[in-house]
Structure formats: structure tokens, C-alpha cells
């Protein structure tokens, strides 16, 4: 047997073994997996995340000093080209730079500040709706669940949700915790709640 064949055979056995172990010993029981999703939903539906995952063209503002959630001031919009980068003359990056303003009510900042695509809508959506959306490649940026987990862990703009600057409530937990929760939920079959 050639060395290449040996390697391929070993790889095949490893893959089989992994699949077998996964089938025999699921990482989480169904109820536990749904509880894991509930924690993920608490992050995705949090204002630091959902305020820029909107269905229409207007990012939202919210926080203790706003009373009710309101649309972003200054006629800020997604952009008539659908880019999420704002309109000519008034881009997101006209005010949002790479770091949070230290001044009260100053603009928060992170790399590549922009609105999420309209199909990735979380604002005012239920747990079941967001769960179905996050698993649908036509509405999640063409990502696998593993890619979504890594995106949550590594993307600087996503990470801003946990470090939003003074005066803003951060999303629950951390990027790393949410990444791990997504991994465990995906390994358990990524169950969604039923409405």
C-alpha cells in the first residue's frame, strides 16, 4: 500500500469515527440545544446587534436615555444602492470611525461600520424567525453554521456589540462565548423553537 493510500484510508477511518461518535454521543440533548439557542437569540435580538439588522432602510437608536427605540437621526439610511454604507454625502463612515467616541452621545465606532443586508433581519423578529433565517444561506450571507460561528467570533464590527462604549448596554456574554454556543448548537443539529 502506498503512503498516499495509507493516509487516505486513515483519514476515511477518522471521518467515519467522528461521524459515529457524533451519532452515538450527541453533544447536547434536544432540550439543551434549544436552551443553547435561547442564549444565542438573546445576543442576536439585543439592541446592540438588532438595531442594525433591520428590514427597512433605517438603523435604530435605543438606550435608557432614548425612551422608546427610534430611527437613527440625521436622515441616515441604508443607501439607495442597497450597500448598507449610507448615501453619497452621508456615509456611515462620515461619523463612525474605528473606535468609540469617548464623549457622551458621541458616535460609536468599529472597523467597516455599516448596516447588515436587509435579508438578515433580526429587529423585532421572534426567536423562531431568527433561527430559521440564520440557518438559511440565502439570508445569512451564504454561510455555513461553522462560518457564522467564526464570523461572530472574529468580525470586528460584530465584536463591537460586546464593547459598545460608555453609556451603552453591551450584548450578553462575549464573542467567544457566543461562538462556542453556536458550535454546540450546530453540533446538536441546530434545532429551532416552534412558534
Amino acid at each position, binding site marked *: 500500500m502506498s503512503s498516499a493510500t495509507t493516509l487516505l484510508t486513515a483519514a476515511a477511518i477518522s471521518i467515519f469515527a467522528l461521524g459515529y461518535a457524533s451519532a452515538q454521543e450527541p453533544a447536547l440533548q434536544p432540550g439543551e440545544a434549544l436552551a443553547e439557542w435561547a442564549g444565542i437569540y438573546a445576543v442576536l435580538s439585543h439592541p446592540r446587534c438588532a438595531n442594525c439588522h433591520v428590514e427597512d432602510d433605517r438603523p435604530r437608536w435605543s438606550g435608557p436615555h432614548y425612551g422608546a427605540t427610534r430611527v437613527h*437621526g*440625521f*436622515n*441616515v*439610511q441604508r443607501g*439607495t444602492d442597497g450597500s448598507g454604507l449610507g*448615501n*453619497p*454625502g*452621508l*456615509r456611515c*463612515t*462620515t*461619523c463612525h*470611525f*474605528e*473606535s468609540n*467616541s469617548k*464623549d*457622551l*452621545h*458621541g*458616535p460609536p465606532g468599529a472597523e467597516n461600520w455599516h448596516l447588515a443586508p436587509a435579508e438578515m433581519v433580526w429587529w423585532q423578529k421572534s426567536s423562531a424567525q431568527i433561527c430559521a433565517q440564520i440557518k438559511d444561506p440565502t439570508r445569512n450571507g451564504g454561510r455555513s453554521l461553522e462560518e457564522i460561528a467564526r464570523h461572530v467570533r472574529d468580525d470586528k464590527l460584530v465584536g463591537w456589540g460586546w464593547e459598545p462604549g460608555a453609556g451603552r448596554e453591551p450584548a450578553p456574554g462575549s464573542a467567544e462565548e457566543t461562538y462556542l454556543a453556536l458550535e454546540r448548537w450546530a453540533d446538536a443539529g441546530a434545532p429551532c423553537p416552534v412558534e
Partner: protein
Amino acid sequence: MRLTVNGRPVEIEADPEMPLLWALRDIAGILGPKFGCGIAACGACTVHVDGTPVRSCALPLGQVNGAVTTIEGIASEDRLHPVQQAWLEEQVAQCGYCQAGQIMTAVALLDEIPEPTDQDIDNAMGGNLCRCGTYPKIRAAIHKAAALKLAGL
């Protein structure tokens, strides 16, 4: 650090956290951009970085990654920028405090949309406030500036 402002190098010895507006006004002596709110909420401090409008009161010096253009840098040697010319012809300014920022945003708009509609103008100018309420004149001046620019004037 060295900035390029209106095509010229400018040496700035300052904390990288200092807002660009402070450096322009207090160190470089470039007084066109104005301090209004200090939190990117009024637009009076608007300048361009590589052609994109930014609120210089909130942009830290250490994050300036490109050439800065202020209101002092948009005219050519013998001619005002079409937006400046239209501003005069339409007599837009009342107190005039916001106009440097208004004009810089309008210049950027026309660079991307040569013949803007009223909606394009509203979409671009929403972050530039005018306490005198000259918005109808601002809109008229931008339409006139578009015509002047397209005519090569």
C-alpha cells in the same frame, strides 16, 4: 505626524486621540471648519478625507488615513468651486456658521451624483444642521451648483 491638508504637508505634534478639528484649527491655523457640537451631530466641522466627508470634531488624528481637504482647499486659483459660487448667487448664508460644513457635504454629493434630485440632496445633507433654517436655499444652491459644474463653470 504628517498630514496632507489641501495638497500641502502639515506637521502635527499632538496626541493621536486629538480630534482632527482641533489640529486643523489650533495647530495648523486652518479655521474654515467650525466647532459646533463636538460629537459629530451637527456637521459644522465637515472636511473630506480622500474625498469622503467626515466630521472632524470626532475623528481622532491617529485614524486619519488619507488626504484632508477643507473648505479652503476646494476653489481653484482663479475660480470658486461651483458649490461656493452657487452659495453666493443664491445668498444661502444667514449667520453662515454651518456653511463650510454644508458646502463640503454638497461638494461630495455632486462628486458622486452630478445631477441630484431633491431626495438625493435630502439624503446627503441630513447630518448638516442649519439653526437659521436656510434649508430651501441650500437645496436651491445645490441644484444651481450642479448646473454650474455640468456647464464647466
